[in-house]
């Protein structure tokens, strides 16, 4: 088949119309697109600079920051940022652009030779009869709060479903899951301030946390003076990340709440799984240093298949094969989240007394 006549000579566009609208030339379209992008970039410069800050560390982020920083300056100087500010104000989202990188966590507690329970109402060792566990009842239910990155969202919903089955657990504050956030980038989302604030408002007795899914990078903000992060999982990185994990547990324990920390699950990407495993080891170590204050839930092993590798399908309690992973190979599907929720409830049952109210109620009925 012939591929058409020779080169086109672009002449002045003839005005042609379809349904009352003028047709334009391809060149005109390109000019409109470029000018619209320039105008849009200027109008949205602050928002773009904010999203550049949120981008994962790397050369693309550096280039994008170098571009949007001066652009935001120009936009501000000529007053182009005003329309966006009005929109944000009208939506009640004026704080979207604010950045606070304070890692507001308490100093780690002094180490003692024999670890003691951080919270006296918890057993330092599961089943330790020397410590009386706090009992919850339907009239005084355990207040459970769930927070973390995107990996906590499905388990959070699963915990809400599980809590519906028992009057002794009440979920508070919904599922506080923020995608693409973590503990390494308080400039993106400051979890340390968020958790401090929510503890005061919600007054939970137990907090389920999941962090780390976006933290497998050689970059952190909010690091103390003199600390420089140069490589993921090197001793400096592990120390600083450990400080943040441990600090959050201490913060929550001091507010009187117990922590269930969900480890990162194995994923369908071997490199990512290895990095998740390294992050898990930091979290696990911090939890071990705080007996009675927190428990680490090893989802990495929980979701490994029979051969120890990634498995999309696992058998549930009834022996049925269920799809436990989301299509992205990282997040959990609802059936997988239900497995996590069951395990969390088991852990809470060890730390607290969630069942004696049944015996007391049964005894009262018998009388």
């Amino acid at each position, binding site marked *: *088949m012939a*591929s*058409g006549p020779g*080169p*086109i000579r672009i*002449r002045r*566009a*003839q005005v042609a119309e*379809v*349904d009352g*609208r*003028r*047709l*334009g*030339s*391809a060149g*005109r*379209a*390109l*000019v*409109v*697109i*470029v*000018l*619209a*992008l*320039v*105008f*849009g*970039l200027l*109008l*949205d410069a602050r928002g*773009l600079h904010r*999203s550049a800050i*949120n981008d994962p560390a790397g050369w693309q982020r550096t280039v*994008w920051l170098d571009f949007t920083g001066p652009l935001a300056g120009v936009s501000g100087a000529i007053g182009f940022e005003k*329309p966006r500010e009005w*929109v*944000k104000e009208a*939506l009640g989202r004026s704080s979207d652009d604010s950045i606070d990188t304070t890692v507001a966590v308490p100093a780690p507690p002094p180490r003692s030779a024999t670890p003691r329970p951080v919270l006296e109402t918890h057993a330092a060792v599961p089943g330790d009869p020397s410590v009386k566990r706090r009992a919850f009842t339907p009239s005084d239910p355990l207040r459970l709060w769930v927070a973390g990155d995107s990996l906590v*969202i499905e388990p959070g*919903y699963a915990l*809400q*479903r599980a809590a*519906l089955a028992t009057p002794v657990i009440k979920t508070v504050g919904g599922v506080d899951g923020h995608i*693409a956030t973590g503990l390494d980038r308080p400039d993106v989302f400051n979890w340390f301030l968020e958790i401090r604030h929510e503890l005061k408002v919600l007054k939970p007795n137990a907090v389920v946390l999941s962090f780390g899914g976006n933290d497998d990078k050689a970059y952190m903000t909010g690091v103390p003076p003199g600390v420089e992060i140069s490589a993921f999982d090197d001793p400096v990185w592990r120390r600083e990340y450990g400080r943040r994990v441990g600090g959050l547990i201490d913060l929550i324990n001091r507010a009187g709440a117990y922590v269930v920390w969900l480890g990162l699950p194995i994923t*369908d990407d071997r490199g990512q799984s290895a990095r998740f495993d390294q992050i898990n080891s930091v979290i696990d170590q911090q939890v071990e240093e705080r007996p009675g204050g927190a428990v680490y839930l090893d989802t990495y092993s929980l979701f490994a298949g029979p051969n120890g590798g*990634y*498995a*999309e*399908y696992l058998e549930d309690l009834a*022996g*049925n*094969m269920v*799809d436990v992973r989301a*299509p992205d*190979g990282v997040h959990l*599907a*609802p*059936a997988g989240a239900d497995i996590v929720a069951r395990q969390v409830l088991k852990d809470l049952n060890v730390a607290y007394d969630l069942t004696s109210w049944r015996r007391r109620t049964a005894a009262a009925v018998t009388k």
Partner: protein
Amino acid sequence: MLFPTATFTLFFLVVLPLSWLAMADMRRWRLFIIAASYVFYGWWDWHFVFLLAGCTLWTHVLALQIDRAGGGTRRALVALAVTGQLSLLGYFKYYDFFVSSSHNLAHDFGVGLPISTRSIVLPVGISFFTFMAISYVVDTYRGQFKPVTLPRFAAYLSFFPHLVAGPIVRPNELIPQMETRRDPRRVDTSRAFYLIATGLFKKVVIANYLATHICDPVFAVPGSHSSLEILIAVYAYAVQIYADFSGYTDMAIGLALLLGFTFPQNFDSPYTATSLQNFWRRWHMTLSRWLRDYLYIPLGGNRKGRVRTYFNLIVTMLLGGLWHGASWTFVVWGGIHGTGLAFERWRRDRSGGVERSPGRARIWAQRLVTFNVVCLAWIFFRSDSIARAWEMITGLFTRWGAPSPLVSAGVLSWIVVGIGSQYLPARFPLGIMARFSRLPVLGQAVVLGAALMLANAMGPAGVSPFIYYRF
């Protein structure tokens, strides 16, 4: 590569001028657009570029053989081609589903099966390009289309605006357009910009807002929400999926227009439909006509008696449901639509095909009933299991009067906008496009730049994947 991202914007800024320049020689253009489309597709996972290339080669070779052969050989070849294409789809999309379903069925009878799942990654867009490849060989078999050269077919199948989530463009709609140079002086730019801007807004602002503010929390834990919240979440999901999917195809159609190509319309105010049959003439129109032409009609359509017609309708929609995903919830969704279509057909048959022209009140009643049946089906489509869908349905009746904090003014407003905009007369968007087309270059740029800023400022951080990327 997702359309509403900086990466795609840069990609398109390079491809658009180069595509027009390359059109001076259509052979060169075809090679260029194939390369650009493969970069677009490989950006997600380059391994699957070979899958697309393999599907292209398989379809091309067999289409040529089908065209040359006659009689029984022709039939055998088309069966071979379609079997190969469906095997590809079956392996990547349904293998684990059928293995787990068989395992569970056998388990119920106390039998263990020596089979295991494989955790197969679903390649983006496989359902769409497989269906386009099937229509190519079937159209060739039917003598409706003469097979073209490999570069021509590869350009058709991989053309990036439709590659990952449609619309499902038929060979005779696109390949002839790719034969001749498009006229760079007659580009429907105002329609293209209108579609891209409204598509972006629908996806980034409306769909994302409704998903995060009501749909996701309610569908995940229906038991902790009031009947009112569940009802509004179902209506919100109807708007969310419309905004998400039609937003994507609006952008795809707009991008193709800027490159000089016209795609078929994919949505036509579906929530104004007065019957399910009417709904399927307005919703994902390119899929419904594909199902009609390549499934319903080959099954016998309405040519083999009434009962067989009802059966064909139900089977077509059940398979259409399964096309959306490897889950029983999609099968139930298809079953509701299939049964509904068969019921409508039965009613029409009973009245002898004579329909009085309905009054205004009757039309609105029909719209209301149709919309609510569609919403009932959406419950199964969105729920992660049939049990959860039942929880939603029972929750609709059992918790009236409970607090409904998720039913906010914002949620209700976007539902009203999402449904109400479908009732706007056609002259309204046409008027906007006509006025926009008369603006000078700078005026158009200012309007578009402001629209970009609005979408970005009103949308949440990050872009969640399009719902139909999973299908």
